[in-house]
């Protein structure tokens, strides 16, 4: 079974061995033996840097993974599956032993390998290998004679090979087992997390994606190649417009004032931007003009908007919208009660805060209320939402209320970088939202900021 990662890794390995564009391999000396078709760690680094146009660091990282996954193995210090960017010798693993080829590893093969090692040199097995050996001996005891026989046979056959070949084969085999039966605690290539099932129900025949695809095609009207192109173009342009509009507001792109708390350890940026701060920042107020949703999503903005609507005697619209949101996102058990409340307050004839919905929508909604469910107000809510968005919102942005807010808004000074950067500031705790909320509940009225314990700067 070849995972996508192994597939891509093999593509890299194959490219590395390409006669034209691949690594130049040569003989490498290992003590007194000359090993052919080898390369140095440096060679590997150079090739990766050149081919993929990446830095040393990235090449070292990628090369290291190629070694960890067993596609390249070291000749010197074979137990240490790392890439050294010096003249240490390495070799490509033979495809026979590729991680994707023989997976899962055969117990029998492993037993033979360990037996060989044991026979060749007493004490060559390290601790975890000894443990594995003993476990296997117990588990497949019935075939142990066969195991030992195979091991002896393989040793005999290898004695007949040239020394260089013998060393290479031993290294290949060892590298394979280091990857497939790693030392406990070491990196395990096969540690992949819970199993995923790739095809749940093979009898699901319909390729629904094909259908969508066809519907898409069929919806392109006559001679509308150009209109399709225009739609495509306008969609793509909208991303650029959005990124541009929000550029200054993106702290990672443009920084934030007075400083980014994570970098400076100074939480002023957060304290000047709390939900219901007295005077908001200029950036924040500007953002309310980007879209109606931005205004509503900011509780300060929403409060300001409510003030404006009340001046115009249309505050009930926003109240209705909020009540509908509460209905949609609230507990199932409260639906009937909430629908009743909404009806009484906003929709019934002579209601205290009657909202002006068109007759068709009103009719549909009143009919729907007979069988209340959480989406029963959707149409009416949508109608009022768009009314506010198209009418009240643009006028609010032109109003004195908004303009004053904008002119009052603060623009914090950027904090100059500290003269002594090695002195870390104290990192203050903040009250947990759970604490603040509970305090509110307990006292039946909104409490202040709550206990703010000062924390002596903990080093991360």
């Amino acid at each position, binding site marked *: 079974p070849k995972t*996508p990662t192994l597939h891509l890794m093999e593509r890299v390995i194959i490219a590395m061995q390409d006669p034209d564009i691949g690594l130049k391999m040569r003989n490498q000396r290992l003590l007194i033996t000359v090993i052919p078709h080898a390369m140095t760690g440096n060679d590997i680094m150079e090739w990766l840097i050149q081919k993929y146009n990446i830095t040393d660091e990235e090449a070292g990282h990628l090369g290291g993974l190629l070694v960890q996954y067993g596609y390249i193995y070291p000749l010197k210090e074979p137990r240490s599956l790392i890439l050294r960017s010096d003249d240490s010798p390495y070799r490509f693993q033979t495809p026979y032993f590729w991680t994707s080829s023989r997976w899962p590893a055969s117990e029998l093969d492993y037993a033979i390998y360990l037996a060989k090692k044991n026979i060749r040199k007493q004490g060559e097995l390290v601790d975890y290998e000894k443990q594995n050996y003993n476990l296997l001996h117990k588990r497949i005891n019935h075939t142990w004679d066969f195991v030992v026989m195979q091991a002896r046979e393989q040793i005999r056959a290898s004695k007949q090979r040239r020394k260089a070949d013998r060393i290479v084969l031993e290294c290949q085999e060892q590298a394979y087992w280091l990857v497939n039966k790693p030392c406990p605690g070491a990196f395990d290539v096969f540690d992949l997390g819970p199993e*995923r*099932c790739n095809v749940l129900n093979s009898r699901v025949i319909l390729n629904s994606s094909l259908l969508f695809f066809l519907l898409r095609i069929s919806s392109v009207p006559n001679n509308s190649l150009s209109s399709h192109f225009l739609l495509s173009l306008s969609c793509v342009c909208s991303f650029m417009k959005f990124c541009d509009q929000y550029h200054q507001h993106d702290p990672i792109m443009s920084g934030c004032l007075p400083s980014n708390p994570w970098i400076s350890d100074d939480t002023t940026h957060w304290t000047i931007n709390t939900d219901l701060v007295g005077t908001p920042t200029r950036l924040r107020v500007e953002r309310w003009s980007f879209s109606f949703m931005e205004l509503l999503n900011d509780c300060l903005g929403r409060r300001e908007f409510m003030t404006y609507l009340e001046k115009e005697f249309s505050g009930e619209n926003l109240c209705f919208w909020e009540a509908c949101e509460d209905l949609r996102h609230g507990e199932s058990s409260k639906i009937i009660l909430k629908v009743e409340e909404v009806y009484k307050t906003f929709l019934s004839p002579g209601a205290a805060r009657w909202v002006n919905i068109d007759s068709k929508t009103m009719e549909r909604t009143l009919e729907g209320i007979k069988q209340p469910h959480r989406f029963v107000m959707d149409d009416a809510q949508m109608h009022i939402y768009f009314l506010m968005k198209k009418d009240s919102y643009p006028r609010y942005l032109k109003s004195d209320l908004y303009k004053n807010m904008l002119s009052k808004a603060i623009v914090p000074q950027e904090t100059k970088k500290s003269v002594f950067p090695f002195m870390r500031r104290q990192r*203050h705790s903040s009250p947990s939202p759970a604490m603040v909320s509970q305090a509110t509940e307990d006292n039946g009225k909104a409490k202040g900021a709550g206990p703010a314990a000062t924390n002596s700067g903990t080093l991360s």
Partner: protein
Amino acid sequence: FSGSFGEVYQTFHLSIYMSSNNKFSISPEMATQEVQPNETLSNLKAESDTLKTKLEDERAKLHDVELHQVAEKVDGLGQFIMKTRRTLKGHGNKVLCMDWCKDKRRIVSSSQDGKVIVWDAFTTNKEHAVTMPCTWVMACAYAPSGCAVACGGLDNKCSVYPLSLDKNENLAAKKKSVAMHTNYLSACSFTNSDMQILTSSGDGTCALWDVESGQLLQSFHGHAADVLCLDLAPSETGNTFISGGCDKKANVWDMRSGQCIQSFETHESDINSVRYYPSGDAFASGSDDATCRLYDLRADREVAIYSKESIIFGASSVDFSLSGRLLFGGYNDYTINVWDVLKGTRVSILFGHENRVSALRVSPDGTAFCSGSWDHTLRVWA
């Protein structure tokens, strides 16, 4: 139209006509019948693949515009420096998931050994800890109010823990079991309030639940394999969400009707992560095929691929910076790649983690992002 798991197998027969002026017309007929013995799965699949190729060829003539072409005129990004500013140590095992609190500094994280921890990431203090009765807690989420967290994994459930202020109280005592699936829970998210949770599961479905009663409000069928991730739309009407699965598909769902309203299948392997672009008009995905992609919901197609030949490991988790200009991807090769969303180029690669990056989220105010890793730690970068 989505595949049914019931006894009756619906097969669609599609007849495609090429009319005289080279336009395609389609007449779908729906037949409800048992699968005929000679209509093997592979035959039908082969047929649909052939049709697909034919249509892709025709479609290519429609002159779609690529994002990076139009973005050529946009200013390039300068030198990009982000560093680890906090390292959260405390999990004894692989970190699998994390989520930010709306207060912009607290996070919840979950791990392989069943531990769920709430941190004040700014001070790196642990504030709450719970041990779940199962291992591999692959999903966790912070409630909008900041007063509760939800989590689940191999227990096939999603449970909600109210965050107690009493340090002596055992959080597990107040645990509320909300969602029940027939396979592992892969992701969960509160909707606009603490009262509803959206879940995705290895059983191939997503579901919407009422927290108070544990009642199933809506289920979403259409994926043909494990669903691995989901994300809620920031749109005005707030009624849709996206999911990605092992069937290589990313689906867009209507929360109210349960219908799949759009579907995208361009990835070559499991989709591990989906995330909406901040405007809600597009979304990004990260996959085991080592690419991230951007899909435009109005143009109804893929508009960008973020890939590099030297990146051969899957992307496990993606998220946008506040303006949507940058896409951060956590990968299974322990790195984080930062992409210029408009130009399609890689801006930076961040090293630091010592094992897979399994979770990555930008903070609510965009000042930082947090990554969780199989190396047992979480890092906050800014």
